[in-house]
């Protein structure tokens, strides 16, 4: 999958709720229309980002994918600031 993004936030090794809590802050620093790529190792982040994107204002979950890095699953979330 090729999703264009403007900034990367590395949340690998972080436990819930930190990937989402910190990504939320990072998105606040983006310009409208920009996309943040969030990389997490917490599997729970997949459903949490989906649920969060539904209630968060000015945020769109563009795509999610799972990358495999040496046997470790990396859960990637592309989040766009919409306003």
């Amino acid at each position, binding site marked *: 999958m090729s999703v264009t993004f403007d900034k990367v936030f590395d949340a690998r090794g972080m436990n819930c*709720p930190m990937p989402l809590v910190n990504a*939320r802050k990072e998105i606040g620093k983006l310009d409208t229309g920009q996309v943040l790529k969030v990389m997490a190792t917490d599997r729970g982040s997949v*459903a*949490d980002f989906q649920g969060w994107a539904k209630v*968060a204002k000015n945020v769109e979950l563009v795509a999610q994918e799972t990358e495999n890095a040496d046997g470790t699953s990396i859960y990637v979330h592309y989040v766009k600031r919409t306003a």
Partner: protein
Amino acid sequence: MGQLTTQVAWTSGDLLRQMQRRQNLFVLDVRNRDESERFPLEGPGLTAINVPYFEMLESGGKDDMIDSLVASIDRDLRRELPEDSPILAVCAKGNTSEFVMQALTRLGYNAGTLQGGMKAWGDYYDTQAIVDAGSLSFFQISRPARGCLSYIIASDLEAIVVDPLRHIHPYLDLARSRGLKISAVIDTHSHADHISGGRALAAATDAAYHLHPYDAIHPMDMLPATFLYEPLRDHQIFKVGQHELRVLHLPGHTLGLIGLILDDQYVLTGDSIFIRSIARPDLGGKAEAWAPLHTHSLRKLLELPGSMTVLPGHFSTLEEGDSSGQFQATLSDLKQKNESLAILQRESDAGFIEYLLGSLPKFMPQYVEIKRVNTGLAAPAEDDAATLELGKNVCGLAQSAALGDSR
């Protein structure tokens, strides 16, 4: 300093004891809605609400996480939260709930957090001694969150384990602490709702793994087991120290289901008779063909002496346990109180089969894959195994209240 009257960090064992004592507890479940629906925290005395933590963060709208949680709870949840009883914050793994507990505490609530979250609760095992006197030590080992029951029967430092669940440490720990040698591992049937620990435990202890040959074939794939096992047969006898276990073939829930009679006093019924329910006949995908067998097997069980104690393979709710947390009842008691057995006693075979086929709960699609795992046709990694097993078992027939009929 005075005695602490409230707990802040709750273990899964604390939670289980609270429920066994039927004490009131308010649960604030902050997982996402899907997870909370698929694997709800429920039990005696519990009142639970689900408010995902990210919804609180958005509602609170502050820069700091705890400030956000405090603002959100203060504004949105004041009316729902009890002021006089403890509130247990619960999340997936026990990290987020700790922050929620801090926010609740800051607002003056009597708050706690479930350590390790629902992951720890889902993997928690409880060991109860059914008998531990004289030459017999007989334990019921449950996984309360899933409603699965397993057993260790020990005598003269020898032990037989029946229906061990996926995590085998409770059996190994108990055997080690008591100096027991596990001589046999028996699965009463090929389980559909959970991954058996039978083969793993047998391998870890050099014991033989016993299974009825009819259950060594996946009923849908029609593929044979990929592992070696000792075939169980009807009336076979296992000696354990000074005691005796007799195999009783009870086809119906599966074709190879067996019960085990211990010393003519106890009957381990596997997935046939439960405390409040009975097993469903459709998990092999052959409900019409298997329902008559199931009916016949249940009638066979009802012919056993009424004084025999039934020890089932599952429970549906923790309410079925007694106040000490054990799941057992005499057969004569169940003949009166178990709704399905009451119907069995008054109906003809045809009438009972009609009742069975009209009381089937939703078929769980993952049960087909779990049976593949238990037949050795698939071997999921830990995360996938945990996902397959998520939530409570649905091995029992639906109760009439749940079906909404007036039978």
